[in-house]
């Protein structure tokens, strides 16, 4: 590991490993407990493969009662637990700990209910994102959030990370499409939030759980809203001589009241890598390439295509192609969707970042990235969810060259600092995990972080669920509970007593 400090393993837990494994087998009989090192190897990492760690033991429960008993057992004995869905996190959210039970939810893989009149699917958390769409598409419905890992990532993991996708400007993130969950708290209590109805009766705990990265509770059931598929979708492929012009075009499209189904931008290195890889017919003489997809009834799509084309022309586009068939629309996307593996072909390794910026800052951030690229001597290619300002710089490096991973990580951290400086945030959709944990103070001061940790304390006061993630420093809840304002020390000591 390159300098990542994780919570110190608890010696007492490590010594009792055999006993814990035996007890886990009592709770989860059959094949549900894995403790051999070679079998646990499959779980040592998630999508952030730079970090690896074998867990204490892997447990794959099948029922809510088993999840509850495992968590209560661990809570009572001060044993840490790391929950895991499909293990596609790009930020190390499911990175195991040496002294922690790895609670893998993949056996929770059933769709429990499809309710078309209410347009709802109830699924177990291990069902894949795409699995929900597959279950309802024969009736013309789909589940809108579509992270690029949707073929593998689980809906429970989507809740933990508040996953997005290319369509989220128009259709929202996971948080806007989940109506209810069942979850188990670290003390074993089973709690239901929401359901088939809208909004919470009290505090919006569903909103807090979504994106909480497995630190608050283990999701055991998810209720999502499904939508009818749009009648048609068409795309424009637009090239610009400068990223400024591309950025202005995006601003003008939105300024005209148009919210496209998807709006993606690529810079020159990403365009070239993608074109070399899939031969999508991308123009190679442009600095910025914009894909704008419009969906809805055919008459609406045709109307908006005309408007977007005119806006692109006014902003100095040098090429503008409009898809005339479904095949051509998919070819526009082929390069964008293959951008990551395409970059993988021009560099032995790449490191994917995930900051979000106010869109208008794009030229400034791209210029800053070019400077950083020279400073670190590493290349960078950019793909950008232009509609919502979510930037994915891909830093090119070679892990076999001594020190290059460290350099790539420092480069990435500098990019994220730049994002925060221009009014953006550290992570748009990949999560904090372990990857951006130590950068949290770039965005939040200690008091801000304390409030977040107070939420943690209400759910899991002993910091047993997924510790070492999200928070740069673990502070004991009792310590955090002390009031900072004391009699005689307040700002206005002479205020009259009422």
């Amino acid at each position, binding site marked *: 590991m390159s300098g990542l400090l994780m919570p110190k393993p608890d010696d007492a837990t490590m010594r009792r490993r055999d006993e814990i494994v035996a007890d886990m087998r009592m709770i989860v009989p059959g094949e549900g407990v894995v403790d051999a090192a070679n079998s646990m190897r499959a779980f040592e990492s998630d999508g952030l493969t730079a970090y690896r760690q074998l867990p204490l033991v892997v447990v794959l429960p099948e029922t809510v009662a088993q999840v509850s008993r495992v968590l209560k057992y661990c809570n009572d004995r001060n044993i840490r637990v790391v929950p895991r869905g499909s293990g596609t996190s790009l930020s190390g959210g499911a990175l195991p700990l040496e002294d922690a039970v790895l609670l893998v939810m993949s056996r929770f893989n059933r769709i429990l209910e499809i309710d078309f009149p209410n347009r709802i699917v109830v699924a177990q958390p291990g069902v894949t994102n795409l699995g929900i769409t597959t279950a309802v598409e024969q009736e013309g419905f789909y589940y809108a959030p579509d992270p690029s890992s949707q073929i593998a990532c689980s809906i429970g993991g989507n809740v933990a990370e508040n996953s997005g996708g290319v369509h989220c400007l128009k259709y929202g993130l996971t948080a*806007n499409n989940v109506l209810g969950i069942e979850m188990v708290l670290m003390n074993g209590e089973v709690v239901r939030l929401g359901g088939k109805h809208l909004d919470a*009766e009290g*505090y*919006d705990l569903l909103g*807090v759980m979504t994106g909480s990265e497995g630190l608050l509770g283990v999701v055991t059931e998810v209720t999502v809203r499904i939508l009818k598929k749009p009648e048609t979708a068409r795309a424009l492929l637009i090239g610009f001589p400068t990223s400024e012009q591309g950025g202005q075009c995006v601003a003008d499209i939105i300024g005209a009241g148009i919210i496209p189904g998807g709006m993606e931008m690529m810079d020159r290195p990403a365009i070239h890598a993608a074109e070399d890889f899939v031969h999508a017919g991308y123009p190679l003489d442009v600095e910025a390439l914009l894909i704008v997809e419009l969906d809805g*009834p055919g008459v609406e799509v045709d109307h908006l295509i005309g408007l977007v084309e005119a806006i692109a022309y006014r902003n100095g586009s040098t090429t503008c192609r409009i898809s005339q068939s479904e095949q051509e629309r998919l070819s526009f996307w082929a390069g964008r969707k293959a951008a990551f593996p395409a970059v993988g072909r021009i560099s032995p390794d790449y490191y994917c970042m995930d900051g979000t910026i106010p869109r208008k800052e794009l030229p400034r951030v791209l210029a800053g990235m070019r400077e950083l690229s020279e400073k670190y001597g590493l290349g960078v290619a950019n793909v950008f969810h232009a509609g919502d300002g979510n930037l994915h710089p891909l830093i090119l490096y070679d892990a076999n060259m001594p020190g290059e991973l460290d350099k790539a990580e420092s480069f990435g951290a500098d990019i994220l600092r730049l994002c925060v400086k221009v009014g953006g945030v550290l992570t*748009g959709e990949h999560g904090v995990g372990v990857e951006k944990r130590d950068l949290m103070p770039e965005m939040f001061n200690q008091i801000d972080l304390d409030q977040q940790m107070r939420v943690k304390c209400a759910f899991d006061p002993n910091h047993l669920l997924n510790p070492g993630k999200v928070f740069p420093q673990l502070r004991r809840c009792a310590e955090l*509970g002390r009031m900072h*304002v004391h009699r005689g020390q307040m700002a206005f000591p002479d*205020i009259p007593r009422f």
Partner: protein
Amino acid sequence: MALYDCPLSVSGFARATSPPLRGREEPEIAMTTFTPSTAAEVLSTVAWAAAEESPLEILGHGSKRGIGRPLQTEHTLDLSKLSGVTLYEPAELVLSAKAGTPLAEIEKLLAENGQQLAFEPLDYGPLLGGEKGKGTIGGVLASNLSGPRRLKAGAARDHILGIAAVSGRGEAFKSGGRVVKNVTGYDLSKLMANSWGTLAVFTDVTFKVLPAAETEVTLTLRGLLDDHAAAAMALALGSSAEVSSAAHLPERVAGRVAGGSLGSAAATLLRVEGFGPSVAYRITALKDLLRNAGPLEEISGDISHSVWRDIRDCAPFVDGLAKPVWRVSMAPAQGHQMVLALRMQAAVDAFYDWQGGLIWLRMEHGDPEADLLRGLVRQHGGGHATLVRAAPSHRAALPVFEPQAPQLAALAARLKAEFDPKNILNPGRMASAASSVTLGPATEGGAS
């Protein structure tokens, strides 16, 4: 009721005594109102109140003051002077404002730029016996307002991007940011949605804003009974016509919106919004889909706008304060079944929004019938019922917000204790939803 000599007022920080709350049943108590105009002054006030363990009623314009258990606080924190839009970038779809900024001011500014708060926050004023057009942007978030477009566009909680606030500990903090896509840390902004001022006092809020629709047309089916209306709405929402709102006004209710312009026959309303050619196409598609459902009419322009505004604001039940009004959220297809069962046992007037999932109920005999209603909601698949209008005596005796399962109530109480350990922010307002008495083990060390 003399003015206290407060050092805070030296820095332009207004304080005043005020008459006691309307509807208050206790003898009159001298009340001090703090009226900060900066976030720093809010911090000073809350920090002082925390140190004194002196509860505050948190107030914007007071337009929703009649919702929740009546408060018995000695002091009031009035945020109406903490006002002004601080950032508005239409091309970035973002707006920031101080928490006390009038909603009306924000909606006017957005309209001038062809934009809107897509979640269409309702105006509780007239329903609760107050003026219309009041309310602050902080109050919009604190009560998680929404309107008929909730089905498609979500509620305030779906559009909040970031907040700055002061917790009940007297700590100023921020959460979120000004960009749409952000998973950096817990989403405390959403936690604060629907917290009714019981966890923290907002000082600044940042919302996502969206383009306003160019055209709006409402397709109306006439004369349907509740169950047929529910089926028609489900059919429409299950089509690709992108219906943004679906409401059903039964026969006795339809005549009470838009100045009676709909006439008195039951009206099932489907709103379609967007660019002109698209709206025309989708209305045609809906007409075809629903050709056998009943007589169809089209309304547009001002009449359509005022129909949806009146549905949003529960105008059919704006009739004094004598009869209790409930706002019930359920699975859309189950709403009318619950109402049918309720009508067997109580005299109620009802209408539906959100495809039937939002039920506004007026109890005709003056008794809220809380246990009966909540029992029936549970029997019909669950949801929640909020007693939005009721006499103070009823609000003091009954849980205004839906009571939660014990584990969930305990979790909410632990959160309350974490953010407001001295219970100084709107204490007791949410009563059973976030009990002010049960402090969990996580609050140890809370005493100073």
